[in-house]
């Protein structure tokens, strides 16, 4: 367990935003920079300080002036909190969750932000429960009419918003954020606080190994073309060619993958991959909640379907009505 010495005492602040910062090498990940950027803007709005917490190896030396500290300062952090964990990877609750609890106990944040990736989704709700806090998965962050910070997200297939204003909460809020946020530009003089000791992992969960995940590029893709149930083995090559012409990743709905036309790792849906592209081109899919529930509400959707009454057109920004074999060749030609 952690042995806390006098140098570990962090002065309480009026309000504090804490951002879990994933690190690769000596640099925060791009996603971490994006979340820090949003954290910086929120902290400034609240008049709060921004703490970046990085979980490091027990043998890792990160003194003041270290490249990581300078990077986190430039990314907007006022203070960097370093917590050592015996097994800091992969990023899961069982590996670093207790270290983040320790960090929260130290700084008593009013808002905790994590990356909305598989690790963040594993950690954030349990951290929220540990803190007795409110939890918001991948909300949009906006300013309310009084200048207050509002977190909102669409639910129930996009029919409803769930919104909360941070100033209405009397508990800590924990949220995961996607990476579509501008990084901040801060100074490189962030204060460093390193806790002594090292936090052990949850011994009940043992990491046996990892292998590549086919189709994982879909989760980072900016442009995705998805083939739905209306795509056949005859028209699939056209959809593949469209993806190539757009420089896009190719995905499929559950129905299409179950028919064996695309591998399971390419399935997009609530039960498959969750994606956050800028542009999402849907070929022959109805637009069910099970499918679009896994697509970021910020994605601009283009729908191609023969049925003008298809539900997908209610979610899309632009639509082309007609058969895939009639429309996609023209689309590829126009893109050339």
């Amino acid at each position, binding site marked *: 367990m952690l042995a806390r010495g006098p140098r570990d005492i962090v002065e309480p602040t009026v309000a504090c935003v804490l951002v879990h910062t994933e690190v690769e090498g000596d640099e925060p990940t791009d996603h971490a920079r994006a979340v820090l950027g949003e954290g910086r803007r929120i902290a400034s709005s609240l008049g709060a300080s921004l703490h970046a917490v990085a979980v490091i190896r027990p043998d890792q030396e990160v003194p003041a002036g270290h490249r990581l500290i300078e990077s986190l300062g430039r990314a907007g952090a006022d203070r960097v909190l370093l917590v050592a964990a015996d097994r800091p990877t992969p990023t899961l609750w069982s590996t670093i969750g207790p270290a983040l609890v320790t960090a929260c106990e130290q700084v008593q944040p009013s808002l905790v932000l994590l990356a909305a990736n598989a690790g963040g989704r594993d950690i954030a709700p349990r951290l929220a429960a540990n803190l007795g806090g409110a939890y918001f998965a991948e909300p949009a962050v906006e300013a309310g009419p009084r200048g207050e910070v509002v977190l909102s997200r669409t639910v129930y297939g996009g029919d409803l918003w769930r919104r909360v204003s941070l100033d209405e909460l009397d508990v800590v809020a924990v949220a995961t954020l996607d990476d579509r946020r501008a990084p901040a530009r801060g100074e490189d003089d962030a204060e460093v606080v390193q806790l002594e000791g090292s936090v052990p992992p949850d011994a009940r969960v043992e990491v046996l190994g990892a292998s590549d995940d086919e189709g994982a590029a879909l989760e980072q893709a900016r442009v995705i073309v998805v083939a739905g149930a209306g795509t056949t083995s005859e028209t699939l090559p056209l959809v593949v060619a469209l993806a190539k012409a757009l420089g896009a990743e190719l995905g499929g709905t559950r129905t299409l993958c179950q028919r064996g036309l695309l591998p399971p790792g390419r399935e997009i849906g609530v039960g498959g991959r969750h994606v956050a592209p800028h542009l999402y081109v849907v070929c022959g899919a109805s637009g069910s909640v099970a499918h679009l529930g896994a697509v970021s509400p910020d994605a601009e959707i283009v729908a191609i379907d023969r049925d003008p009454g298809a539900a997908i057109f*209610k979610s899309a920004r632009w639509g082309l009505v007609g058969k895939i074999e009639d429309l996609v060749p023209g689309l590829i030609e126009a893109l050339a």
Partner: protein
Amino acid sequence: MTVAILLRRALARPGQSDEHEVLGPCERGALVAGLRLAAAFGTDAVAIAAGPARREDRVLAMALRAGANRAVRLGADGIDDLDYLGLAEALAATVRSIAADLVTCGDRSIDERTGAIGPALAELLGYAHVTGVASVAVDGPRILCERFGDGRRDKLAVKRPAVLCARPPRANEPERETNDASVASAATAGAATRHRARTPTQAIDTLDPDEVGLDMRRLAPRKNTAGRLRPVRGGKTASIVASPAELVARLRAEALLER
């Protein structure tokens, strides 16, 4: 030892059942995984749902037909208004009441898509948890899980007590590899519809909050932390474009094309 399988009726709107989906895809994964683990450990599987009978009994009856030994419904007024932690507290009390040391639940519901109940439940119970579980197998006392995330497949071994948050059986993967083929088929909305007339609702135990040691008044503040629901104004409809060339021109005008 008991395996608890947490189920929940898919909702189209708050409090309103989805006409097309009885169980969301992840809850189907939880049902299949829970029954598979109960069979492998040679123990009972108890399906649990929270909410009114008119909504949740259909889900529990499906679980009984699929092979669950028992079904329990926590009936508590106002449970739908609680946030993730309030609901997790109610479910934790129910899990404790049946002394389950292994819990399966959906990784993410189809309606709220929050993915918070499993990890929060594990925190309240003091159990280990794994999210994004794509497959399970038993290796002695351990449960081997395959988990997808951030560009890799993690292989994990978990010791009980634990909460496993299941994704659906992946497309093209052998959903029917379970010993009981009826599990896979019954864990679909269609099966529930076809066999609805034979639903043994009498076999569903209804528990009051008092019976599981739950004080709903203590959970009341968790209604304030869920956030407010508001309708999305002006439901959008796609702008239908006349030709592929016009579509490409619009995408270029919005700088949405990368090449």
